[in-house]
């Protein structure tokens, strides 16, 4: 089965079959990552460029390792977003990179829609969205699905609560699309200032209380709260946030006993998640990171049209 997309711009445009193909492909790559010699020749001769306009450790490293373990040449570029008046435009930067004939550009940008803008203008290479503004972060949602499926054996029929700054999170949007397509029920919870208008139309149930939101769920997904939000008009204090929306050893008992706890990182220990929970038995946070490499290998493989055997 071949993959019908040139770019991965978001989960919104993927079908359930696409998602399943990615997850199944990732499964075979996960084994490679645990070998003694963690390298296969699958993408030899392919060039992958990580073009990051926003700081990122986890995602960039994960894509870089994914590329290298498949023998692609991976190059990292840290760029600063230009303004209209100074600096090179996004299009010029991308065209210059394209002129060097890469196969895939993995891109992160603070502007929602930036990878879509490039996809309309570049002709040669594929683009993977590694996070655009508050819009989508497809590879994160895919690694989350992969991790859930590994633990629960399925995604269909599960209930997942996502707690935190729903309004400003790209992880949320991609996960809502992904989980709904796979047949899970999605709840979101956060302070009133962090619930964006119309979110329920994406197929979620909205809560303003973590206890109600996580009651009886199979998966609790906590979001990073950006510390700079404290003290502006969105949030009075982190103390209060932690009290009403933080996950701790008490309220986690409301979720199913076998519920798993996820976090896309980086965590603020003691703010959205207590260390006891973050390091507790139910957490799968580092598995998410491990699975991220396998999922990103699958994305690179499917986009590069790799037909070679592992």
């Amino acid at each position, binding site marked *: 089965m071949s993959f019908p997309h040139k770019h991965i711009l978001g989960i919104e445009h993927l079908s359930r079959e696409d998602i399943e193909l990615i997850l199944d492909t990732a499964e075979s790559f996960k084994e490679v990552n645990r070998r003694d010699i963690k390298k296969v020749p699958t993408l030899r001769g392919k060039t992958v460029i990580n073009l990051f306009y926003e700081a990122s450790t986890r995602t960039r490293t994960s894509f870089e390792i994914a590329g290298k373990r498949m023998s692609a040449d991976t190059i990292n570029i840290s760029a600063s977003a230009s303004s*209209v008046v100074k600096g090179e*435009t996004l299009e010029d930067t991308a065209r210059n990179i394209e002129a060097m004939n890469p196969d895939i550009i993995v891109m992160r940008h603070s*502007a*929602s829609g*930036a990878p879509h803008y490039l996809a309309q203008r570049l002709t040669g290479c594929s683009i993977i969205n590694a996070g655009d503004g*508050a819009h989508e972060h497809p590879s994160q949602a895919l690694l989350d699905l992969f991790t859930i499926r590994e633990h629960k054996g399925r995604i269909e029929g599960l209930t997942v609560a996502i707690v935190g700054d729903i309004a400003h999170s*790209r992880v949320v*949007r991609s996960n809502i699309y992904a989980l709904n397509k796979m047949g899970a029920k999605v709840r979101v919870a956060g302070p009133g200032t962090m619930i964006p208008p*119309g979110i329920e*139309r994406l197929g979620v149930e909205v809560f303003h209380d973590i206890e109600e939101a996580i009651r009886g769920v199979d998966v609790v997904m906590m979001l990073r709260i950006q510390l700079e939000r404290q003290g502006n008009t969105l949030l009075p204090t982190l103390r209060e946030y932690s009290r009403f929306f933080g996950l701790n050893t008490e309220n986690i008992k409301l979720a199913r006993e076998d519920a798993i706890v996820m976090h896309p990182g980086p965590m603020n220990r003691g703010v959205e998640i207590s260390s006891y929970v973050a390091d507790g038995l139910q957490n799968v946070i580092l598995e998410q990171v491990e699975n991220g490499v396998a999922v990103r290998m699958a994305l690179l493989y499917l986009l590069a049209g790799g037909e070679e055997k592992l």
Partner: protein
Amino acid sequence: MKILIKGGRVLDPAHGIDDTFDVLIEEGRISAIEKELKASGAEVIDAAGRIVTPGLIDLHVHLRDPGYEYKEDIVSGTRSAAAGGFTSVACMPNSNPFNDNKAVTLYIRNKAREEGFANVFPVASATKCSKGDTLAEMGDLKAAGCIGFSDDGRPVASGEVMRRAMEYARGFGMPILSHAEDLSIVGDGVMNDGFVATELGLKGIPWVAETAAIGRDVMLAEYTGARLHVCHISTRQSLDIIREARKRGVRVTCEVTPHHFTLTEEAVRTYDTNTKMNPPLRTADDVAAMREGLADGTIDAIATDHAPHHLDEKNVEYNIAMNGIVGLETSLPLTLRLVDDGVLSLGEAIARLTCGPARALGIPRGTLEVGAAADVTVIDPELKWVLEADKLASKSRNTPFEGWRMKGAATHTILGGRVVYQREM
């Protein structure tokens, strides 16, 4: 020089005229409107099957001159106006320098008169440099030819300053134009706040940012007795506030842009920066409300907010792209769509482009009276054409209507008895 417009359907909503007449223009003025006129030596325009209207008026354009001539200038902007059937435009003061003093006003008027293709009625800043603290010299600006005052695009934040601006303008018999926006609510929003913004991950501008400001300004107008013209309204709630205020006798008029009665926020889904403007494109219900407001007469005028921007200012990420689109050459066909859609009669549509705007700002144009300046537009309402941005007369290309199939266009635009635009057929 004489021009005889033969056999057209003459539509002069100000006088309730809608009949087939010949129109004779002599010495820059309309000299006769009668059946079967004859005039030896006159240039004849065959207007059979066409409509003949007062020259169209656009209350809200940005000519970018002085200061931003790379986007547009008075010559190209008025050429664009003429191509769209407009003979009069009111230009906003946010040039560089701002039009907050007599020297800039006179520069604009002189350049328009000597090199332009339309009457240009400048709107001056209400406060110095549109900074919102000190009143501009409104008396001097009026004497220089300005027709109203507005800090367009940089709305007056202080209620006290707006109150004083209204009181002061009222003393000179002048209107205040309000680009109504509470910037503290707008924040760094880039599109209408709501479901589509949530999906796209773009920061939203809630409708209350507009209505909160309109509410304040309408009440200040009620309190001060000043004349208020609310620019480019875009939400149902804005319309409701204005409709209610009028019932109480508040002297408030308003305008809507063609894009706000044509497009919804759904257009933003492509991240096409030509869908980014201020106020932003709103919901389908707001579009319906704009149409209702036009039909019931609450909305006096259709105005384009013609906002030319260079390609480089639009060919960027959505959140940093400039706000606004060009509008002068698409306003007429988009307005005529309202006739096809059964929203307005042809006469009402023309009224919103002629006498409606003229009355709102007291512009001495907008009718076809014998003896009046011969500003006349001949329109082929059935002409089918496709919008190609590359062919616009404006210097800029920023339109969301690229490739749209249009119906209706000006075939001749006559300014003071001179044909300033003739469509190649």
